[in-house]
């Protein structure tokens, strides 16, 4: 997993509430066997006309100023719906490394941090300020500093944020969860020995 330390980039405003994972990456693109290559279909139903396949010029990421956005300022409950990790994979493949909203769906939240994407929860008022900041376009970059837990809005205002200390540690250092858990192999074996005695039918 790629580290996340500090990012200065264009932020795209996406003020859609309950933006679900089918909007982020529709099911028909889930036939892939890899984690890469999904960026071209990120937000497919919003980005392209379903009948012609042409770009929808009104969609934010199709506007010149936002084509290289790496931060998304999103509406409430972003990433609701399915557990498909293809959603963060598509964001990452497009180049998005950070999403800021008032709330995220739980599974999407977990999936994103395992892929080096930082998700930040802010208050409705702060989201409004960031949404306005993002609407200033390509010359208006934001900075997200994970170590300091600070967002610098395009007007220079600073917003601080909370982050789970373990997730912060993993993101800052690009750590693989499995490698860390395997270091606890002895504790897992102890658990299994006790559990097997209590519920032997689960160990056929």
């Amino acid at each position, binding site marked *: 997993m790629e580290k996340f330390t500090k990012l200065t980039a264009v932020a795209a405003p996406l*003020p*859609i*509430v*309950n933006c*679900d994972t*089918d*909007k982020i990456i*529709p*099911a*028909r693109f*889930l*036939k*892939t*066997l*890899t*984690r890469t290559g999904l960026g071209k279909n990120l937000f*497919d*139903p919003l980005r392209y006309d*379903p*009948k012609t396949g042409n770009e929808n010029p009104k969609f934010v990421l199709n506007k010149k100023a936002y084509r290289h956005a790496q931060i998304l300022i999103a*509406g*409430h*409950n972003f990433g*609701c*719906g*399915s*557990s*498909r*990790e293809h959603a*963060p994979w598509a964001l990452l493949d497009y180049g998005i490394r950070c999403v800021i909203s008032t*709330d995220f*769906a*739980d*599974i999407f939240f*977990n*999936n994103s941090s*395992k*892929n080096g994407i930082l998700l930040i929860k802010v208050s409705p008022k702060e989201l409004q300020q960031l949404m306005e900041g993002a609407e200033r376009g390509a010359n208006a970059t934001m900075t997200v500093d994970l170590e300091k837990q600070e967002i610098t809005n395009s007007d220079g205002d600073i917003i601080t944020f909370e982050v*789970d*200390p*373990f997730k912060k540690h993993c993101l800052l250092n690009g750590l693989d*969860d*499995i490698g860390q*858990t*395997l270091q*606890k*192999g002895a*504790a*897992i074996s102890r*658990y*299994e020995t006790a*559990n097997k005695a*209590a*519920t*032997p*039918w*689960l*160990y*056929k």
Partner: protein
Amino acid sequence: MLKPKTLFDKIWESHLVDQQDDGTCLIYIDRQLIHEITSAQAFDGLRQTGRRARRPEANLCVPDHNVPTTPGRGGTQEIEDEESRIQLEMLEKNAKEFGLPYISINDSRQGIVHVIGPEQGLTQPGITLVCGDSHTATHGAFGALAFGVGTSEVEHVLATQTLIQRPAKNMRITVNGSLPFGCSAKDLILAIIGKIGTAGGTGHVIEYAGPAVEKLSMEGRMTVCNMTIEAGARAGLIAPDEKTFQYLKGRPQCPKAAQWELALEQWRKLPSDPGAKYDTEETLDVSEIVPQVTWGTSPEDEVAITSVVPDPAGVQDVNRRSAMERSLEYMDLKPGTKMVDIAVDKVFIGSCTNSRIEDMRAAAVVAKGRRVSDSVYALVVPGSGLVKLQAEEEGLDKIFTEAGFHWREPGCSMCLAMNGDMLFPGERSASTSNRNFEGRQGPGGRTHLVSPMMAAAAAITGHLTDVRELIN
């Protein structure tokens, strides 16, 4: 005296392997269900790092999302769509390579993961169960802590049999009253989601309780828990009771003889203690509800079938108003239109929400002796080979085919339209599935979520219909 605990607290504590100083927990996972869509990259990760599956026998692999449902579909090798075929072959190859139990497309036990887990008795009270699918919440109907995970977590469970988690908050929804005529578990859960909203359960595990929940069959309880994710919660739970034990007794993967008695003794201790504290409580009385139907593109966008398409103009919250306007534009609906005046092109009876034997029977009651409207294409997709066989033994397939419904092989089918069963741009469906998101059933397709009886009624009349007017 010990602090009273909830069902969730009890399962969580009994699965705690390790807890870090910062509160991060390592919890043990008893069972994992694996399907073709969210697993290939996980197996690939294991290969790249030279890791093996820690307990292969704790997993079960089955193809479901991508499989054709056409009669006489044959084996994996005969699947025409190349991408689907490769993905399904990959699941079989991975199961073999890592030594995991695998059910093939031709096996009568094949079906949707969330239908076959309980059918095979893999789902049991008090266990932790995960799957790379958000509707894993279904298994909570048995008092199992079951939740959907992403592919990285599928790999994590394969390699370590654990997951890194933080405890969820406890929420209880007490459902009072009795479901009235024409209403089912589907109407009950749609009414709950309509009340608490699609993010109402975020960060929580929801325990469903109260007389209306106790009265539900196991199939009905699965429908309720299944859609918990549509309220944003991590998992749904229902306390196991005699009905649960009766359903499980004798299932292939359930304990037998003396071990069955030992299991029962443990399972009976699982229900929440009197006085247990919940972070959030909701109460609902379902005695007065009428059949529910969605009008928009989020499961919370639901109304009574006797109602009209709502008007965003009167909504104060600007975000909610703009979401409603966008939904109506996508759905091509005008505020004030009677729900029963909305014509449908396709009807889908199936999915992990509503494809069990009870759902088949409910739809057949409406279909019996009637004809599907000429303007509608209607398909019935049983949730598993065993559901299909049982339905055929009961003659339900004849009722459906004589009425003009298409009787299919098991799979996820038009719920998420990966296998060719889909809506075309502009088409509208009445569907017993769980999501009415934009494009869910095909790009530009429009979905109205309903119960199996309501779906059958819409197929007959050609428009959304109050099923109570068809059956008396």
